[in-house]
């Protein structure tokens, strides 16, 4: 929606957060974003902005209460069986209609694969801009505009982006950027019930099967600790050892592309430019050389440990702790120590 004059900019207010569910559970990025939305709305002084949580899904009607404990002033629920599975087309049609109806100033979602597939569709349907995969949001003093900060070029450039003349200002936001607020169990607010229109249910795509966590263990984007194996792990058996270390640390298993391409482990585990971008508290790279395409996927991790035979490997320069040695000797020792408590 284009702002044609400053007068009609006043009709846009409120900060909306699109709630995300995974396997029926609230995705934790939702709480983080509600906390961020609260801060943003406090800064939108002249607008008396509220934090609005948008909850779509079958059974959404019963899920409103919880979001009031995490800063939401209003929860809009759309509870319909057509939203049981994640059908981008239906979701985007409903959301864009509600956006046109209520005119939020800002709309944010998690930069998850779902958020990043639904939000570009919504942005086009309502004719506004969208900034992908943000790692910072703020309100510019004076203009009250949303400043959206994001990495590009695999994290080698940090750009700040504005959407001046279109509303809502939309972004997808990376998980772990904002802290989830401490829940306030006394929080309450207004619930607005909306529906899915018949016309919106007619789509040419149907999701026939959904699976969650078929890959056992903790998934990469949620993990505080990731243990990654590269070509130095030498084969699937080596990954059993990597998995054992990850398990001892309650972490997840990552892999370099070389390991994935060799067929030692599935692509779901790949970290890097053509895999996932991760930001755990601790990243342990075992037998990974640290080519730029790998580094772009993990260099913003909190603390980096590298285990490599080659003291000169690029990963060793990036690392906080560089263990020079044979991973087949070092890792069993680590596991032994961890298990002995």
């Amino acid at each position, binding site marked *: 929606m284009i702002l044609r004059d400053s007068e009609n900019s006043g009709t846009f207010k409120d900060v909306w957060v699109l709630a995300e569910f*995974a396997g029926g559970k609230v995705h934790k990025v939702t709480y983080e974003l509600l906390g961020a939305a609260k801060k943003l709305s406090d800064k939108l002084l002249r607008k008396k902005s509220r934090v609005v949580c948008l909850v779509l899904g079958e059974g959404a009607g019963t899920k409103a209460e919880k979001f009031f404990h995490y800063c939401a002033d209003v929860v809009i629920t759309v509870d319909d069986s057509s939203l049981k599975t994640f059908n981008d087309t239906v979701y985007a049609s409903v959301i864009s209609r509600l956006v046109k109806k209520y005119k939020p100033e800002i709309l944010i979602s998690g930069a998850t694969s779902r958020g990043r597939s639904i939000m*570009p569709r919504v942005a*086009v349907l309502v004719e506004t801009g969208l900034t992908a995969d943000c790692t910072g949001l703020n309100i510019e003093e004076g203009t009250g505009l949303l400043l959206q900060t994001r990495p590009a070029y695999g*994290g080698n450039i940090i750009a700040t982006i504005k959407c*001046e003349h279109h509303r809502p200002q939309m972004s997808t936001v990376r998980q772990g950027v904002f802290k989830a607020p401490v829940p306030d169990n006394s929080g309450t607010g207004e619930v607005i019930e909306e529906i899915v229109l018949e016309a919106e249910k007619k789509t*040419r795509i149907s999701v026939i099967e959904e699976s969650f966590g078929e890959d056992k263990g903790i998934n990469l984007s949620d993990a505080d600790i990731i243990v990654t194996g590269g070509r130095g792990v030498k084969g699937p058996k080596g990954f059993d050892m990597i998995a054992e270390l990850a398990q001892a*640390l309650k972490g997840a298993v990552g892999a370099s592309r070389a390991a994935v391409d060799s067929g030692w482990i599935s692509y779901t585990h790949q970290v890097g430019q053509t895999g996932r971008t991760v930001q755990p508290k601790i990243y342990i790279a075992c037998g990974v050389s640290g080519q730029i395409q790998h580094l772009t996927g993990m260099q913003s991790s909190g603390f980096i440990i590298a285990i490599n035979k080659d003291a000169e490997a690029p990963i060793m320069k990036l690392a906080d702790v560089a263990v020079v040695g044979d991973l087949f000797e070092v890792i069993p020792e680590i596991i032994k120590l961890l298990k002995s408590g």
Partner: protein
Amino acid sequence: MKIVVCVKQVPGTTNVSIDPETKRLIREGVEIVMNPFDAYALEEGVLLCEKHGGEVIALSMGPKHAELTLREALAYGADRVILLNDRALGGSDTFATSYTLSQAIRKIGDVDLVICGKQAIDGDTAQVGPGIAAHLGWPQAAYVSGLIKSDDSGLTVERMHEAGNDTCVIKLPAVLTVLKDINTPRMPALKRRLSSGKAEIPVWSASFIKADTAKTGLNGSPTRVVTTRKPAARDKHTIVLNGNAAGSASKLVKILRSRIKL
């Protein structure tokens, strides 16, 4: 099947620098390649056409030298290519880019399927594919990791998300964005390589695709980059452990225990 594959030319490295004065990326001396994800999109298009017949059209919007990327697409198996190049298209964000590409797809006509890469490695947005789908009013499947079944009426695909996979049935026309594990792109045959070097590259203008220039280029882009900077260098010195395995392991475990509860 008439399949359009969107290919973008990108710098061959993500290790780019910014000109301190103009605040723009330094493009000189940076090798230009086809966005790596787009090679998988192209291969999938070629595979589908080998099975069902039809043609693969590689489509790119960009400066004149994006021709090189389209020649690469021809070498990798595209039947024909189109370059969208016009002054009115410069400075496009993902809204304007997806609008412009969707207008070209309308102009091509009777397209059954559009395949994009998951994301371009320069902007890393992953927004253009779903944007095209929205502009055309077509269904989309993003982050597709496998094609399970295909016939002229539709596709069964597997989409990847953080915690697992979905299987979807999608009727054509539709838009897919694909991940690298969907296939293994073939090496181009020498003959194709040679002929692609000589091929004529058709260039289409904004008016030819009936693009509304209020929605293209810098003017038609809702978002603006206001500043760019290099990320702060990691502030640390590396602790090197290079003793025997048992010694290193015990020091490392101490460090781990000091940072997390185990």
